[in-house]
């Protein structure tokens, strides 16, 4: 499949009074055409920073893309001029933010907010832009769109607003849609509707989606591939089935064990002890070592190599290292 977006060894740092925070420390992944990639991880692991860095939307200063490349159709986005980047935002790569209650400007009608995005990127008349906005609102399931265009955000419910935000993001037919926790602020039934909408729209438009979330339930519903992030690194990535049924990194296992399940008793819920490392001074070795039940001395000292378990599935863990596996086999 064709690669739409390639993120290569991305490093993002924030300068604060306390020193440099290394929020993203060498993230590499590809996004294929028409697929949904989920980036999961707990708060502060760098998933939002990664997504905003792709769009170059991290507040700068204090934020800075320190190293790495973001290739979109062969162009390195990190090297573009700000004006060139503006042409990409909204037109080729779009973004949806977490809270639909605050993501829309309260003083501008939703029609105008959608239309201004179209007019920014496409050389068409206001009339045509309006027509396009109507089609899009129809597509995301806003009833009576021509009337609704004239309404302000406060006249819509949360779920409706998220639909409008999605319409706004997709109206210029971008190739990549980055959704940062798109369902976190919604209640569960609306969540399901919005996730269905994502799948539906992807089928119709072929857009590639990066969905950022900490909710494994959401991941299970929409993702084709999953990247698990921890302390600014992708520690494990693979097809959805492989990650859910054959997780190899102790952190991924820990995440899956801490999800409540209907088929098990509540007593089986196992939280991951401890807390993520300090990203002012990240550890030299595996950042999860301090919380890991299987940690060895090497884990503390050297960051593990990437081990490929299958074509897509790879993990950064010494336990999966070839040599460890060989030894295990010998003992058995």
């Amino acid at each position: 499949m064709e690669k739409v977006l390639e993120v290569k060894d991305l490093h993002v740092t924030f300068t604060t009074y306390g020193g440099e925070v290394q929020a993203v420390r060498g993230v590499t992944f590809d996004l294929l055409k028409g697929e949904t990639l989920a980036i999961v991880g707990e708060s502060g692991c760098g998933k939002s920073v990664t997504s905003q860095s792709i769009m170059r939307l991290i507040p700068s200063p204090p934020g800075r893309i320190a190293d790495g490349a973001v290739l979109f159709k062969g162009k390195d986005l990190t090297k573009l001029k700000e004006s060139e980047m503006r042409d990409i935002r909204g037109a080729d790569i779009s973004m949806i933010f977490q809270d639909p209650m605050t993501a829309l400007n309260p003083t501008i009608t939703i029609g105008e907010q959608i239309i201004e995005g179209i007019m920014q990127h496409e050389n068409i008349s206001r009339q045509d832009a309006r027509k396009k906005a109507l089609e899009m609102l129809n597509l995301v399931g806003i009833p009576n769109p021509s009337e609704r265009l004239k309404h302000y955000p406060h006249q819509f419910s949360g779920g409706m607003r998220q639909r409008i935000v999605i319409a706004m993001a997709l109206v210029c037919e971008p190739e990549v849609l980055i959704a940062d926790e798109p369902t976190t602020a919604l209640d569960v039934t609306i969540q399901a509707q919005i996730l269905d909408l994502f799948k539906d729209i992807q089928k119709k438009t072929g857009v590639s989606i990066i969905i950022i979330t900490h909710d494994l339930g959401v991941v299970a519903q929409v993702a084709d591939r999953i990247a698990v992030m921890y302390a600014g690194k992708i520690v494990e990535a693979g097809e959805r089935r492989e990650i859910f049924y054959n997780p190899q990194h102790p952190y991924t296992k820990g995440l899956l064990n801490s999800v409540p399940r209907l088929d098990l008793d509540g007593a089986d819920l196992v939280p991951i002890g401890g807390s993520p490392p300090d990203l002012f001074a990240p550890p030299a070795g595996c950042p999860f070592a301090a919380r890991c039940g299987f940690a060895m001395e090497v884990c503390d000292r050297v960051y593990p190599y990437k081990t490929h378990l299958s074509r897509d599935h790879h993990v950064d863990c010494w336990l999966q290292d070839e040599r460890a596996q060989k030894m295990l086999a010998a003992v058995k």
Partner: protein
Amino acid sequence: MTGYIIKRLIAMAVTLWFIITLTFFLMHSIPGSPFNEERNTSEAVQRNLEKFYHLDEPLYVQYGMYLKSVVTFDFGPSIKKSSQTVNEMLGRGFPVSFELGIVTLIVAVFSGIALGIIAALRHNGFIDYLAMTIAVLGISVPNFVLATLLIQQLAVNLAILPVATWSSPKHMILPTLALATGPMAIIARLTRSSMLEVLTQDYIKTAKAKGLSPVKIVFKHALRNALLPVVTVLGSLAASILTGTFVIEKIFAIPGMGKYFVESINTRDYPVIMGTTVFYSSILIIMLFLVDIAYGILDPRIKLHKKEAS
């Protein structure tokens, strides 16, 4: 909407009545009267004068007569300058004060908002600090000090502008500058802080993610939301500036109405005190009403009239 306006007008009338009543009784509780000065007037003359102005009547009768005069917009003759009526004094002074006030307001609002926006966009940068230093100076330096400095530098030393009086646009520059600096500083600080708050909002991020230019983001998405607090102070600011300022008008020998506020109280000129107070209060109340209307225009979430909840 009309229902709302009628309701507001009634409320405004009630407010005005409160102010009038309060001022009337406060005014009469100040010791002294318009006629006991050093000038020796005979008992009979004094009594006749008091009789003429109904000052010999009991207070409640005077109050009743006063209410009547307010309703008919006829404040009667001044006691101290008996050749003039209060209406004539206000009619002569107000247009001048209003002219100075409008120019001042325009200068203060535009430069204040511009300064605030620039400071917010360059948050914690050199320009921000510079703008805020100017703003702090503007707030803390009294306008009579500034006026004197301006006259000394621009009118006396450099001799490029007239020292005082009110006759040509050139004459307007110094008093406008002296009068506008304070309000400009207030507006700049307010704009900056509310702009800084608005710029961190999610919808600004959304606007950026749409690929809008910084100019569009600031003027279309941020400014309108940031202006609400500015509009709030603008109401009372406008009322006080438009009705003249004693100090600036005195320094620049401008024949506005600012002096009547102070002089009338010193001389116990009851009709003028009441006239200026009622006039100022009316303007203030009208301004506050306009501010509320402006809220509704700036922010659609603020509903001025009850409509069906959607």
